[in-house]
């Protein structure tokens, strides 16, 4: 079983700061991390490999520093990693990203046929979740998004059994291999990596590819050039006008509030006191 996990380096949006004057990202404030969903994707691959054996490759597109997220994936348990890094990739939106990644996947597939591709549900910097299904289309394999469980992998029949999260519930899907999954966080918990993985990761040097390493690339589909969407403008979201302040002592405030609420009492379900 050969699983490829696509991983992205993203700024940590939890601590991100925006310069209010220029509406740009304050890079200093945002350390780069492995997209949290992608960490779960790698962990999911590790759990599958425990049952089936095989190889986990990780693939990332980004600047040279993105080797850090490949190393992080090795810590979690991936066997090897590839980074595609080239000026020509810069400024890619999801369409151009899935194109570039699919070129790398073709190359990986030639060397060792790929049985499954796993992506995160979305990357926290863009929150789009469009790259995974895009790759699936380009590789012409079925995508299964929002996966919360991979319950069975049948290598003989070349099928997998998957739980896919829906708005209210889930569905059980059987998909043929090869296929592409995008995973939710609840699919697993990231395990604390064992020391040998840490040492392996510290030593690991990912393979780095540039555009010139690929065959049959249409350069017009890469990077900014290949991106149909552009950012028009950035603005701070309009703040709605505030309403009325209820003034007075605490008791007066509570009384006024009660009056307001009693006007809406049909919405309330007042429990009888026991």
């Amino acid at each position, binding site marked *: 079983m050969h699983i490829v996990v696509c991983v992205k380096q993203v700024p940590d949006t939890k601590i991100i700061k925006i310069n209010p004057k220029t509406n740009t990202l304050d890079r200093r404030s945002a*350390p780069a991390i492995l997209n949290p969903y992608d960490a779960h994707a790698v962990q999911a691959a590790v759990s599958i490999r425990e049952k089936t054996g095989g190889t986990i490759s990780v693939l990332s597109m980004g600047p040279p520093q993105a080797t850090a997220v490949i190393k992080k994936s090795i810590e979690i348990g991936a066997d090897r990693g590839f980074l595609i890094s080239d000026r020509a990739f810069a400024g890619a939106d999801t369409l151009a990203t899935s194109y570039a990644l699919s070129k790398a996947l073709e190359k990986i597939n030639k060397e060792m046929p790929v049985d499954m591709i796993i992506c995160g549900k979305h990357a926290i910097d863009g929150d789009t979740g469009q790259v995974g299904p895009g790759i699936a289309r380009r590789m012409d394999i079925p995508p299964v998004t929002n996966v919360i469980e991979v319950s069975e992998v049948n290598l003989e029949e070349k099928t997998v059994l998957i739980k896919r999260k829906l708005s209210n519930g889930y569905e059980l899907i059987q998909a043929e291999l090869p296929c592409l999954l995008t995973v939710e966080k609840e699919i697993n918990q990231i395990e*604390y*990596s*064992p*020391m*040998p993985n*840490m*040492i392996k990761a*510290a*030593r690991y040097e990912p393979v780095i590819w540039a555009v010139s390493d690929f065959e049959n690339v249409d350069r017009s589909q890469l990077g900014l050039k290949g991106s149909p969407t552009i950012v028009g403008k950035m603005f701070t979201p309009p703040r709605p006008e505030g309403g009325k302040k209820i003034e007075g002592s605490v008791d007066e405030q509570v009384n006024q509030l009660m009056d307001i609420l009693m006007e809406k009492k049909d919405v309330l379900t007042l429990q009888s006191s026991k």
Partner: protein
Amino acid sequence: MPEKFDVIVVGAGPAGTSCALVCAQKGLNVLLIERGEYPGSKNVMGGVLYRKQMEELIPEFWKEAPLERPVIEQRFWMMDKESVVQFGYKGLEWGVEPYNNFTVLRAQFDQWFAKKAVEAGALLINETVVTECIVENGKVIGVRTDRPNGEVYADVVVLADGVNSLLSKQLGFHKEFRPDEVALTVMEVINLPKEKINDRFNLEDNQGCTIEIFGDSTKGNLGTAFLYTNKDSLNIGVGTTLSSMIKAKLKPYDLLDYLKTHPMVRPMLAGGESAEYLAHLIPEGGYRSVPKVAGNGVVVVGDAAQLVNAIHREGSNMAMHSGLLAAETVIEAKYRGDFSESSLNLYRQKLYDSFIIKDLEKYKDATHTFENNPQYFKEYVPMMNKAMSKFFTVDGTPKRDKQKEIMKSVTSERGTIKVIQDIYRAWKAVK
């Protein structure tokens, strides 16, 4: 089979990284283990990096290291409630190569420094806590970490785990600190636009200033405060020995708040935005607190060995230099194939021959003297302020009379003999 390294260094602060760097440069197989998310992520320092010891490790480091500003001015404030007596030195020679020292933000600096060790060939592992040394037949043969399959082995373990050094305590090298051996320091990084900093501190870009503040900065307790300029932020902090904190029932953050709102300090911070709060211990026991620094298969460097000169606020330089000396020792031991205590004791000898122990010895009584004689901070600083105020207030009194009056008030407040005693004691402590 778990791996065996030549050297395991615990802690990627200035001490550990220096040691790892030098060992790796000499081709040793080095594992550097850091518990933080990355080196520097948890590290705290007022922020003055001394050029000399760093340069010994990486020549001309200032050309690429993430430094904030070269320090061209050092000020000292004797601060009272509503006044301050100041002196200092500003020299443009410190603003050009090879510089004197720099302000740094540790989160950035440590990360860069560790990268240098990695480039030299050391393996760096983050987010991993060393829980204990593995000891066999009285010899340290490796470390145990909090990770699954977490044991790793080495000929020598270098403990660079900072002031608390649980690991050297476990080996019995240390006793628990006495409250007068450590200072608790809290600091804050305050973002402020570069132009404002330049205006307020009378600087140009790439010129930095440090202010050490005594007196009311600690409400008169033994300790100091500091205010340093970074590129577009300020580091402000205050610390006192744990013992005075306990005695005076001070809460460290209250002290910092007090300092930040002090009328002498407030205008310099105005409009700034607090970016980070940090708290840390500083070993201040000095010469008398230096523990055993070498054992069978193990050496202790930096803050873990309490190598800090509290009077001059030198720590990172001592950490780096001790890391270098330890590395030299380990390399020699490797050459001899002998990692016994007697072989590694060469490190102790090197340490005692260096400026580190010599400086610590020179000031060995200083903290003690000040701790036991609170008048230095409590009484003399206000006295100096009053004296200056009197002397410079133009009210028609002849200057000669003013001097007499000042002397009289000093001696009446503390008594002539006592004043002479105090001066002598202080001089002896720092001479």
